[in-house]
């Protein structure tokens, strides 16, 4: 457990500069949604997607500067490295959730927008689901190929895919969008949340097992 | 005492160390009971391998010049006259052998060789 904390600490020092820059990006997005669209539902989803892009940063930096060689000389097991990286990702997921909550409260009171709590929580869950999905795919790829710069790219891709879905709905081409799904699921609020979290948890656990299999016997 | 190593002297390094310590002992610079520098410190200061200094000290011990006290280091033994004599006799033999080799190469006859020896003895007034 202690070793995980050390790896976490190590990765946090690696990313500390970038956090400041990206945090400002989130605020900008939040304000955009609140002010122009008056729709707070999109805030949590956007934040979660952008949080994933931040998550991959230390891994990318480590790859670029060969920090993994250094980690191989530390008195830690390879499993600890995998666990540390997952923990780091989950930590940023938690930060994303907290940030969303705070943002929504600030924006709602600042721009005087009303909102349905259940919708907000559901959209948060969707954000968590998307986050888990991207992380679950990215991390095993990182541990296998170790030169994958995909996290930021995939986050941007998912984000624009999300916008595309919304636009297609507004244009009448699609019958559903994530927004309508959220509204519809409000009836099954607790069940929907439970299922979404369950799916997210399963994704991350499967991903962790795959990462272990890939990384434990790999040549660095 | 100072030990100086030459990389171009032709003699292996451990031999140089041995010779210098031996000379110091025979000339009295190193006195009986005095401690030699530790194997590792000597290696560090001369920037050479520990095995080389170990070898020099081991040889010196075998030849009876020093004794190695386990855990403490090497100490100079009292000069054993027989030892000294043996060392110097060996040196004389080596010198003669050297002269002989040179004589062979230059095809100098035995008589000429002996004449050279006589001349040196006379110059040095050696009995």
């Amino acid at each position, binding site marked *: 457990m202690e070793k995980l904390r050390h790896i976490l600490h*190590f990765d946090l020092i690696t990313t500390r500069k970038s956090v400041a820059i990206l945090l400002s990006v989130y605020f900008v997005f939040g304000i955009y949604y609140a002010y122009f669209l008056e729709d707070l539902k999109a805030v949590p989803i956007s934040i979660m997607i952008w949080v994933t892009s931040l998550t991959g940063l230390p891994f990318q930096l480590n790859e670029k*500067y060969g*920090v993994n060689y*250094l980690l191989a*000389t530390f*008195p830690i097991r390879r499993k600890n490295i995998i666990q540390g990286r997952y923990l780091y990702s989950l930590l940023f997921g938690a930060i994303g959730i907290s940030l969303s909550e705070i943002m929504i409260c600030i924006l709602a009171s600042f721009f005087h927008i009303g909102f349905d709590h259940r919708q907000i929580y559901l959209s948060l869950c969707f954000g968590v689901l998307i986050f888990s999905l991207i992380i679950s795919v990215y991390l095993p790829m990182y541990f296998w190929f170790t030169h994958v710069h995909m996290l930021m790219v995939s986050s941007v891709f998912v984000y624009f895919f999300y916008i595309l879905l919304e636009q297609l709905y507004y244009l009448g081409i699609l019958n559903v969008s994530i927004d309508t799904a959220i509204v519809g699921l409000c009836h099954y609020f607790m069940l929907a949340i439970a299922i979404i979290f369950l799916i997210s948890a399963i994704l991350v656990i499967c991903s962790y097992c795959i990462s272990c299999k890939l990384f434990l016997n790999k040549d660095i | 005492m100072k030990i100086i190593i030459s990389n171009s002297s032709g003699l292996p390094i451990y031999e140089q160390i041995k010779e210098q310590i031996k000379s110091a002992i025979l000339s009295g610079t190193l006195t009986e009971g005095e401690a030699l520098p530790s194997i590792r410190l000597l290696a560090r200061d001369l*920037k050479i391998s520990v*095995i080389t200094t170990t070898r020099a000290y081991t040889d010196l011990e075998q030849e009876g010049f020093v004794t190695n006290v386990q855990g403490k280091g090497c100490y100079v033994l009292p000069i054993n006259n027989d030892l000294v004599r043996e060392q110097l006799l060996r040196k004389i033999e080596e010198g003669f052998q050297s002269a002989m080799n040179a004589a062979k190469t230059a095809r100098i006859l035995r008589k000429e060789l002996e004449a050279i020896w006589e001349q040196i003895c006379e110059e040095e007034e050696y009995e």
Partner: protein
Amino acid sequence: MNNSLEVTDLCKNFRDFNLNHINFTLPRGYIMGFIGPNGSGKTTVIKLILNMLKKDQGIIKVFGQDHIHQEVDIKENIGVVFEAPYYIPDWNLMDLEASVKPFYKTWNSHRYYSLLKDFELNKNQKIKTLSKGMKLKFMIAAALAHETKLLILDEPTSGLDAVSRDELLGILGDYVTSEEKSILFSSHITSDLEKIADYITFIHKGELIYTGTKDELLEKYCVIKGDGSKLTGEQYETVIGYTENTTGFEGLYPLKALSGLSANIVTDTATLDDIILFTNRNKVAFKCNTNERLG
């Protein structure tokens, strides 16, 4: 536990390169030089010891313990210096300490900062602004800041000037004044090892050519030069890395066989570089300690 490092029968297969049956032992308190031309497999062996690469076969013991089963305990007591600092260039030397310190139980901050001061390094300086010599020094400071019994250096001196290399040798010399500590020093700048190494392991194209004391290796061979026609057939076969040019030939020759040689042939002491060079030039693979010709 008398040996810092024991490598037995180590094998690793890559697509276009194979490490074959590497055996060597580094006793406690000594420096082993790891020599061989570029690409001979030195870094591969070091990575295998550190479990960065997975071995196909063989046993590696560090401080008497298996290098995989007791990996964590072993790495507490190892310091590693690579060719380049694998840290984030934006970090300064204090960030480094902050991130590395928690991993080691015996990290001594006081020692780290006093080493930085001895090396005249400013702790606020960023890693990317350091010169090559300074980078090496801070890597050593980081490696020495915690209690270690084995120091592994992988080509740390390539690209360094003579002054920095000499300073490094001084630091390493100080390190082994303790009988408990050993150093594995891989380098292709053999003049450094020629001075301070106690043992030498020589690897060439993935094969072990020699392992043993440095003195023994240097006393085994000499370089001979002269007129090639003066060699008998058997003597010609015995020459290692025979190279002919307009002025004559040169090659490596075992000292034991010197007596039969013609007087016109000049003999010279062999340096480690000579041994590597002539071994490389040799068309036929051979091993020093068995005097066997292979292939």
